[in-house]
């Protein structure tokens, strides 16, 4: 994709044509890295933070701004597990499947959560309320098995305890 200098993105002070303020914040992050192509992963982190996930349009926008071919941006975004190309649920429940958690029974915890929510790990309930995810070790092995509920790490979990968390999430109305 040939991009010339004249197509430089709008300065951060100017509002984004879409009127979406998140673009202005993303623009600021790119500017901080001087639109350097090697800042791609940092920029994707920021974009996901702002938008929740990386849509194709968003990836094209970033590719354009950093003067990178869209294939490269798409390749990087899909290579790393941390980046999501689909919207996430309003709440999240992450079951750690690291070795220490595995040895202490995390498989049973995940199975209980899957059964209760009626979805597979890595997906979101049809109403978009809860995403059930897995992690490969959070480094909190001392308190295994661990589950992260809406960003809060909790240790020494059991299947029963996790179902209580999930029930609590289910009752939270936005």
């Amino acid at each position, binding site marked *: 994709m040939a991009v010339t200098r004249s197509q430089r993105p709008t300065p951060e002070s100017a509002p984004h044509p879409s009127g979406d303020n998140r673009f202005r914040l993303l623009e600021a992050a790119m500017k901080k890295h001087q639109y*350097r*192509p*090697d*800042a*791609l*992963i*940092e920029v*994707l*982190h920021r974009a996901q933070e702002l938008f929740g996930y990386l849509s194709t349009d968003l990836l094209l926008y970033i590719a354009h701004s950093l003067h990178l071919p869209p294939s*490269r941006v798409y*390749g*990087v975004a899909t*290579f*790393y*597990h*941390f*980046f999501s190309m689909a919207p996430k649920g309003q709440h999240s429940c992450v079951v750690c*499947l*690291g*070795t*220490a958690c*595995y*040895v*202490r029974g995390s498989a049973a915890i995940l199975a209980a959560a899957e059964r209760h929510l009626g979805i597979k790990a890595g997906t979101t309930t049809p109403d978009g309320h809860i995403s059930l995810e897995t*992690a*490969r*070790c*959070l*480094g*909190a*092995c*001392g*308190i*295994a098995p*661990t589950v992260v509920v809406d960003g*809060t*790490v*909790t*240790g020494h979990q059991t299947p029963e305890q996790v179902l209580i968390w999930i029930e609590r999430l289910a009752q939270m109305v936005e």
Partner: protein
Amino acid sequence: MDLSELIEIAEHERASRRSIRIRCCTALGCQSAGALSLKQRLEEAATEVERQDIEVIGVGCMGLCGNGPLVMVDPDGVLYEHVRAADAPSIVAALDGGEATAPLGDPQHPFFTGQKRLVLEHSGIIDPERIESYIAAGGYQALYHVLHEMTPADVIDVITRSGLRGRGGAGYPTGLKWATVAKSHGNRKFVVCNADEGDPGAFMDRSIIESDPHKVLEGMAIAAYAVGADQGYVYVRAEYPLAIQRLQKAIAQARRLGVLGAQIFDAGFTFRVDIRVGAGAFVCGEETALMASIEGRRGQPRPRPPYPAESGLWGQPTLINNVETYANIAPIIRHGAEWFASIGTETSKGTKVFALTGKIRHTGLIEVPMGATLRQIVEEMGGVPDGHVKAVQTGGPSGGCIPATLLDTPVDYESVQRVGSIMGSGGMVVMDDATHMVDVAHFYMEFCKDESCGKCIPCRAGTAQMLHMLDVIRAGQATPADLEQLEQLCLMVKETSLCGLGQSAPNPVLSTLKYFRAEYEALLIHNAERATTEP
């Protein structure tokens, strides 16, 4: 900033200390168990009793993560475990002869007394969020000494003579690596700290950064001076938000005081450090993949040579060491190469930090001299709940399972390798009879299959095929010939893969086959049964 200012900060910090210090662990494990609200309650309780001789400080990991939140009261050395916020007033009252409601820990337990803390010397003692706390413990004096009284060649000589080897797992001599980077020519040189601790079951690097981030930065700065670099990167996993936050804070504080940045200690040496946050790819722990990721590309390894020491980041000479390796540098400079070389075994010097987890009474972080036996670590320090260990897994997905019969194996690079595992970065998972070894092999193979970057065929197709064969075995549909074929495939993948991930992915299968073959064989179709089912 000069030495007198550094000493002034240290003295001021020490003078402002109060006689009774209540240390509350605020590392991830204890935070998850409620340490932050506990710390706040302790502060409130200390204020309420209106005593001027009590202070409450947040510290890093004290080691016994499984029993958190932990609180230690100085100078009497009273340890409390599983402390709830509600226990806070009673802990303060106990200073006046009351009785604390939190369970007492035993600081004289072998878990603590069996350790030799060098990397973790400040962990659980200083406040990781304040640079003054590190300086008061003698921090940044090694860097000052190096910049003013040693040439880069002197530094490399000390590190070489110390016998320090890379703590990331492979055990490459650190001094030799530094010398290679120092000799290489480039427009610029880089120093990289590998904090992409991806092995499930390992959390040494996370704890070191969360507990003593400046120590890692000081080690990196000394390394940069020795090899002639002016820019450093710390590559941290995105899964470690607290470590990232503390590191960011540490870098900002160090910059403000002038111990990082331009003209450090007025010695004409410039060194800047930036953080690069990973995005969840295990393969990025491999050095060439890690560099690709820092450059904003997919984390795929490339063949070596050229080694990063000659052609690394953006084609320039690059030094890559692990977090724990850098954390060893300042103590070596402070105490000398001979002191360091006197610890450990003939070929493995110093200490090693291990993350002790699994079916064990005391889970957490320990640091022992190289050469300590697995039995000392697992049975004496860890404590086995029902007295029976089946196997100890070391080295994560790249390592193997060491059976209980070999618990007297000393922990050093060569000995662990001899029994079919690897030292790895330091994860140590204890397993009992409830864990089936074929399941363990399957668990790791699934991990490696998911994490294979897909660049080379042996790893991409091999891990998928090995996983499939393990599925067949687990389903009770495999023949003895299948088992043999699995073994052959393991060896082939090991020999022909491009990077460490593929080369070591078969290790968990091979080591469990070696020591627990009976568990595989019990799952095979019986020969006679096979004869009737075959067409």
